[in-house]
């Protein structure tokens, strides 16, 4: 037996509703977030990630209340990201029952937030979320769904973030996000080789086979996807069945709690 590879549905949340962004524009409503999260849990999701896609400004209270509501009903780990811009806000989200917070643009603007959150709440609660896009022969960190280039090298940033205390890297390929072309294996393995913490690959998954390929060809600890699950192209259970059939270690379906 060994550590299972994780399958993580991602829910883009706005005002408690799930939306799916295709390259972060053109969003569509796909229903109540907690209802959907509960379904994923039943189907065998190993963790959940909630990204509040417009929390950057006025919606912080909503994020904390939302995290609390999730923790009331679900007993699997979950991460909250999107708009986490202070260690205090991270603390509030963790205190109500979230397991991790993901920081992205706030960390690029001021990397000290990584150290601060990790120092107060531990590296295991601190996820560095990176949006990366291919630029010539390297990957560049971009913000705001790709609208804002930073000039920062994604591998260097991953290393720096981990050195500052991030306990996990959530790596989103902007080139693949919403394209259904499969995970970006090159980017994923490059980052996974650059750091010694677990890497969650994100962006581009369109089938169970994409997850099999991800775990066969890279050392990512987890694969994250949104639309494949939202629109029923495959269930979480389908993906885990395919992984198990391919000999990849997964958490088996659990016996229900009576």
């Amino acid at each position, binding site marked *: *037996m*060994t*550590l*299972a*590879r*994780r399958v993580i549905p991602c829910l883009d949340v706005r005002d408690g509703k799930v939306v799916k962004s295709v390259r972060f524009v053109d969003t569509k409503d796909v229903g109540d977030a907690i209802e959907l999260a509960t379904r994923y*849990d039943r189907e065998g999701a*190993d963790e959940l990630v909630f990204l509040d896609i417009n929390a950057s400004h006025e919606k912080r209270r909503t994020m904390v209340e939302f995290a*609390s509501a999730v*923790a*009331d009903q679900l*007993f*699997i*780990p979950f991460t909250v990201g999107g708009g986490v811009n202070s260690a205090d806000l991270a603390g509030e989200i*963790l*205190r*109500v*029952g979230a*397991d991790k917070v993901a920081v992205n643009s706030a960390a690029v603007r001021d990397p000290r937030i990584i150290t601060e959150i990790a120092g107060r*709440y*531990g*590296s*295991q*609660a601190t996820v560095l979320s990176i949006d990366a896009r291919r630029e010539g022969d390297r990957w560049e960190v971009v913000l705001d769904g790709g609208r804002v280039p930073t000039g920062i090298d994604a591998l260097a940033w991953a290393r720096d973030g981990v050195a500052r205390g991030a*306990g*996990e890297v959530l790596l989103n390929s902007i080139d693949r996000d919403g394209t259904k072309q499969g995970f970006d294996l090159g980017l994923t393995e490059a980052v996974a080789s650059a750091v*010694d*913490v*677990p890497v969650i690959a994100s962006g581009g998954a369109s089938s169970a086979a994409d997850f099999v390929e991800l775990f066969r060809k890279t*050392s990512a*600890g*987890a694969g994250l996807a949104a639309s494949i699950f939202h629109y029923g192209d495959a269930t979480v259970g389908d993906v885990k069945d395919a992984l198990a059939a391919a000999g990849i270690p997964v*958490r*088996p379906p*659990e*016996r*229900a*709690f009576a």
Partner: protein
Amino acid sequence: MIAIVDYGVGNLASVRKALAAVGAHAELVRDPAGLRNATAIVLPGVGNFGHCSREFHRFGFAPALRGARERGVPILGICVGMQLLFDGSEEDRGEPGLGFLAGKVVEMTNVPRLPQIGWNALGLTGAHRWLRDVREGDHFYFVHSYVPEPAHARDLLGTVEYGGTRCAIAGSDDLLGVQFHPEKSGANGLRLLSAFVGATTRAAVRS
């Protein structure tokens, strides 16, 4: 009353909410005196052992926990809370644990990545009544870089494979420490917590 030791660190709300899900009312206790009426105690903790240990001692919980242990109050330690049941950790030398279980907490070496984050299968090496519903191979959610090494084989009740065989569960009669997070381990975790809550009820009847 089940008391969750609140020394300002960790996933207290998650533990309270998971206990609520198995029908138990638990209260966060910030004052060591509040442990006197506890029928059972959960000692949580996440993150860094040294930080947890310092805060735990600063709040003055060690004597209250020792008193509870002497009274036979069931105690469940989770993650760093489990590690605190041991003598101490190399993560922060000099920060003592409670010494309820003999052994040291050490950093995992020869591992693919640290922390270990995710679901891993349990090996059962000993029996304990709060583990009555746990089966060999059940998956639980782990998040840790350090792990206790029990000095006595009899205290080692469960193992996990991560760059070697590691201690996942340790304990004795009214004491159990789990390295994983039962409050985040889905149905498997709720079953374990439910068995613990059952022990609480019996302890209350005894006293």
